[in-house]
């Protein structure tokens, strides 16, 4: 009896792990496929399929993807687009996070009439589909003479990102005791002084989460990128799309794989090293 019981327990335990590992395989397959393909030759892939182990590891896919492969007629590899994405994502992340922290501080700790309404509208901006903003942005960028520039995309992501960063920071600051602000007021500190000396030193946890999410989001963003940039001003997601839309020549799956990996690497690294904060942002943003 006891033995039978422990056997069935063992069986269900085995089943449990079997299911978990099967799902792990499902999630990992695309990644492994891309990694392996990036080392396989053109002939090898086209003669078989994208699923296969390299007959010999070749690195020329990587070199071409990085520096010389032609994307929509420009033969400079993916390097300049990586640079574009970096030039967009870093300033936009930092500025929007700072503005969001400021907004969150204002809306949560200086409760004034209408603060909740303002917060509600800003939060709504998180859900507002990008399609609702494309035409106004197109007109605005044209009027500011920023169409097809990195600066234009930075502006978009700063303004657009503020909804998100305000949501994160405000929900964090709401839990800061109001007494702290009162005490600082009695001590004679002003608006900016309280923010700089008292609130900001409490903020690293939420600022890390916000920066990670903003960076990932902006790096991965595609719609604004494809709409408001062309040619060599494209961010890397738009360049990837142009790469795979290349119908003039036969598909170079090996080079495309290397390009995909290079393009995905920054956010994957952020995820691997900041996973804890990544998950925290997930719950902070979602359960609200």
């Amino acid at each position: 009896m006891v033995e039978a019981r422990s056997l069935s327990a063992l069986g269900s335990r085995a089943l449990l792990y079997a299911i978990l590992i099967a799902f792990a395989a499902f999630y990992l397959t695309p990644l492994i496929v891309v990694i392996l393909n990036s080392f396989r030759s053109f002939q090898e892939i086209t003669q078989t399929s994208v699923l296969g182990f390299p007959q010999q590891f070749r690195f020329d896919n990587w070199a071409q993807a990085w520096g010389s492969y032609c994307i929509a007629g420009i033969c400079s590899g993916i390097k300049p687009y990586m640079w574009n994405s970096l030039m967009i994502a870093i300033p936009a992340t930092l500025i929007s996070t700072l503005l969001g922290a400021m907004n969150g501080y204002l809306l949560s700790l200086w409760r004034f009439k209408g603060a909740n309404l303002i917060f509600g509208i800003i939060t709504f901006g998180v859900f507002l589909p990008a399609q609702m903003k494309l035409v106004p942005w197109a007109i605005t960028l044209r009027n500011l003479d920023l169409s097809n520039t990195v600066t234009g995309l930075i502006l978009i992501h700063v303004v657009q990102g503020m909804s998100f960063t305000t949501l994160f920071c405000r929900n964090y600051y709401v839990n800061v005791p109001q007494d702290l602000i009162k005490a600082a007021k009695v001590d004679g500190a002003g608006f900016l002084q309280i923010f700089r000396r008292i609130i900001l030193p409490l903020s690293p946890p939420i600022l890390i989460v916000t920066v990670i999410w903003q960076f990932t989001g902006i790096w991965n963003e595609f719609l604004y990128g494809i709409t408001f940039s062309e040619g060599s001003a494209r961010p890397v997601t738009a360049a990837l799309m142009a790469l795979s839309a290349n119908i003039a020549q036969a598909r170079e799956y090996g080079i495309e794989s290397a390009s995909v990996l290079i393009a995905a690497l920054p956010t994957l690294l952020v995820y691997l090293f900041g996973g804890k904060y990544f998950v925290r942002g997930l719950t902070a943003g979602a359960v609200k």
Partner: protein
Amino acid sequence: MSALSVEGLRVRFGSVEVLKSVDLAIESGEFIVLVGPSGCGKSTLLNVIAGLEQATEGRIEIGGREVTGVPPKDRDIAMVFQTYALYPAMTVRGNITFGMECRGVAKAEQQAAVARVAKLLQIEHLLDRRPAQLSGGQRQRVAMGRALVRDPVLFLFDEPLSNLDAKLRVEMRMEIKRLHQRIGTTMVYVTHDQVEAMTLATRIAVMNGGHIQQFADPQTIYDEPANLFVARFMGSPPMNALPAKLVASGSEIAAMVGPDAATAVPLPNATAAMKGWVGREVVLGIRPECITLPDGKQDTRPGPSLPATVEMIEPTGAETMALIRVGQSEVMARMRPDARPAVGSTASFAIDTAKACLFDPKTESRIA
């Protein structure tokens, strides 16, 4: 000289009136406790005095100077908060000097002030720690240090002991009292704990429903509560309130708490006000310690007694409380520690009516 005066203060949040015409006049060196149940407006009053919330109407003077519209930092006050509100990212020293830093006080002077206050509160060894590394009692001291260093004309305390455990609360209570005796600065202290109010205050303001119900010294509040609310709120267990009917027999006036004459409690010091109520319904208020079980030895005071059924007893060690039934009412009696009347038995309880109060059952105000 007046340290604080509040006149006709009203605070309205939207349609809710939190304070309804509050007046207070406080002399220098007093220790005033604002006490009342949660939502009575005591914390709002304190915040308005500090300038952290705005009054809808009325005027406030601190140290003889009108402060309406003056920001908190220029009111010459210091405040200790319920949550202590220590700046988490600063050391204890930083917490204490932050206010001086904001006002541009010279570094050397700041350090001298810190040293003096730290010595006074015996927190010298904590100066370089952060709030998270302190115990509850230590945080409390630092919060007081931050207030003390301002040397204000008025100290404000917002339930400063309510986050401490019972034992520490008693210790810190004594320490605050000692501090007041030593520095003599005027203090306004908010609490919902009536024991804190009784032990600390030179005068107590009992608040309820946005009004000050009574503003007097602790003994007056205890012995002559202005109304039933004050009578019930102050004292633990609270004053017994028995519905009664006033009857007169000759010059004697008695309160009948039951259906028949056997339940009449004679009231020795009849006043003129009382006589007007003869034949009418009143509420008789008697503190538990005025109802006791005579033991035939010490407690042989001649006086009225009342037969009552014992429903429950609660020995606490220092005394024994009994819940007894008199007529329709349940009444708490406070007895000597070794008294053990049998539950369910009827006994004759001695009543000391010298301090009995009478209340108007409709307005709940005290008649006598």
